[in-house]
């Protein structure tokens, strides 16, 4: 790459991907949002307030931890963990909700809506809404409401209204549909906080920009700790916000290999997975063109993953671009492999990871042994595993 990476273009396109594919009523609020985002991103006062919130409320910078025991066990590259699990609310999601909530406040919006799958983004949104005294409505598929009841209760404690969505497959994609329907109905006073790098422009770029704090910190911390850049970055990809947050500041550093890890569920060959980059094809959903899981008639296919946070048929359009351009590699990890990653980190390092992040850990178990002992891998430990205790116990036949 000779030119500095500078995606998307001013219409939100990452090559053939991204863009604005929404019904007409949403065009004016999207334009309003884009103008506000462009303005405040360059506003020193906004940046200062965001930085202060990230430091004092979220608890940044998150540590870059050298997992020495696990590295030695794997017998290859040195593995460093970017500890997003230590953020307030327990995942990287809050980096973005803090940013978008400040934007909502600046724009004079009094009502916040969000979609959520596992509930992490819903909790992170309810958290910032509570702090700013804004009304908050979170849409969640009824299937997810049932399997993530703890997060539903957390959101309610924080003062949010959780709406259980009964349409379609009753999971994350349907929650997103319902949030879009709410937004189109309440455009005048409502700010829609999308939780991942998907949706119509400017969301993929804006959410990425709020998440790049992960990569910027990691780069500086790696240089301080080792005196050089890492050789590889590994992150799980559902919508892809934690991955793009880590990858983006390294895109022009072509010596750094990028690995995005999708959820292979029961295995790509079974069709029961959530891996559009590995096994899907380009299409249009939720406001952007990207790799999607849809059938030969263009209907969206139901997805499967042990991890509710990766259970989504699309992926951020920038990942689609990074895949086609060859800059990033996209691989996949099954439910069973993810469980092995989960147990490995828990036992070797005393850190209980989220099931989403366990996909990145499981791929690291394959990658590290193929590399030299002075090579460096940074893995994004995007969230902590407390929320997954019931899922894991159930899978392993243990009654809590």
């Amino acid at each position, binding site marked *: 790459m000779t030119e500095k990476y500078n995606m998307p273009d001013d219409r939100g396109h990452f090559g053939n991907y991204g863009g*604005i594919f929404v*019904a007409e*009523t949403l065009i*004016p609020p999207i334009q309003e949002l884009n103008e506000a985002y462009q303005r405040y991103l360059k506003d020193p006062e906004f940046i200062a307030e965001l930085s202060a919130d990230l430091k004092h409320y979220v608890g940044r910078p998150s540590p870059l931890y050298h997992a020495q025991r696990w590295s030695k066990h794997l017998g290859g590259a040195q593995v460093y963990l970017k500890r997003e699990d230590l953020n307030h609310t327990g995942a990287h999601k809050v980096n973005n909700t803090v940013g978008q909530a400040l934007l909502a406040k600046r724009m004079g919006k009094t009502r916040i809506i969000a979609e959520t799958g596992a509930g992490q983004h819903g909790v992170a949104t309810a958290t910032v809404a509570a702090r700013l005294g804004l009304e908050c409505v979170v849409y969640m598929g009824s299937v997810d409401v049932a399997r993530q009841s703890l997060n539903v209760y957390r959101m309610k404690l924080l003062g949010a209204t959780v709406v259980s969505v009964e349409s379609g497959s009753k999971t994350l994609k349907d929650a997103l549909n319902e949030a879009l329907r709410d937004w189109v*109905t309440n455009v005048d006073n409502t700010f829609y906080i999308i939780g991942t790098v998907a949706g119509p422009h400017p969301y993929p770029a804006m959410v990425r920009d709020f998440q790049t704090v992960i990569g910027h910190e990691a780069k500086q911390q790696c240089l301080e700790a080792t005196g050089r850049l890492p050789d590889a970055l590994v992150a799980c990809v559902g919508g892809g916000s934690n991955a793009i947050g880590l990858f983006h500041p390294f895109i022009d550093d072509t010596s750094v290999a990028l690995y995005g890890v999708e959820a292979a569920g029961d295995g790509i060959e079974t069709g029961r997975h959530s891996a559009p980059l590995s096994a899907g094809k380009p*299409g*249009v959903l*939720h406001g952007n063109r990207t790799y999607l899981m849809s059938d030969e*008639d263009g209907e969206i296919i139901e997805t499967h993953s042990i991890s509710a946070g990766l259970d989504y048929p699309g992926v951020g359009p920038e990942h689609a671009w990074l895949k086609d351009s060859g800059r990033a590699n996209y691989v996949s990890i099954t439910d069973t492999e993810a469980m092995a990653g989960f147990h490995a980190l828990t036992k070797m390092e005393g850190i209980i990871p989220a099931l989403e992040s366990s996909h990145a850990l499981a791929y690291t178990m394959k990658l590290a042994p193929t590399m030299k002992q002075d090579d460096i891998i940074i893995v994004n430990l995007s969230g902590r595993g407390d929320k997954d205790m019931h899922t894991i116990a159930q899978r392993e036949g243990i009654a809590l």
Partner: protein
Amino acid sequence: MSRLAATFEALHKSGRKALIPFITTGDPNPDFTLPLMHAMVAAGVDVIELGIPFSDPMADGPVIQRASERALAHKMSLRRVLVLATEFRKTNQQTPIVLMGYVNPIEIFGYENFANAAKLADVDGILTVDLPPEEASEYGSLLKARGIDPIFLLAPNSTDERIKKMDALGSGYLYYVSLKGVTGAGHLNIADVEAKLQQIRANTRLPVAIGFGVKDAAMAKTIADIGDGAVIGSALISKIEANLNDLDTAKHEIIALLTAMRHAMDA
């Protein structure tokens, strides 16, 4: 002149307005749609909007969402919608058909393949809900080159600039979404619709059909008087949903409502 342009011109000359029903193709089953289309024509409708069922209908309210789910349960698809349109044309060469749906089925079909197939099926217009003009220029040209009208939506918050854009890219008619919300939503504010139509008229000479929230004959007349036509969707589909075990009654109630609307609009 396209079939849609001719239809609106003839209506205009006779001082009448277009009655435009929307039904989801294949709801509640694939056999129900074709006889219903012919019956609606007999009841005096001017244009038929055929919904292409989609798994993720983001702009639709619960009534049309469930219609999509019922149709998809019978494996209704874009391909089969085109087959059904072809069947309809065998005995009706006059009534314009507009396909209305979301972009992904068309994207997966392939834009040029779809434009060719739609031409072959003798479809008259295509309304793609989540394809705004910014993303639609090539697709719009493909349709227009085949004599098919690309129909665009206008909303209560559309600016002069955007209305001009739709006027330039669209043809046949423009579809004014009369309220901020999803299909079948609550109450229309007539004064707001009147004011908006003045703004729209100032920026386009295309006919304007008005929809979202038209529920009964009185409302259809009021709305049609303001624009060039009224679109009725959820109110019709509700009749299907209320009579899933007695589809003859469903069809009868749909025709009765459309007949009442026709009379009110022509009075």
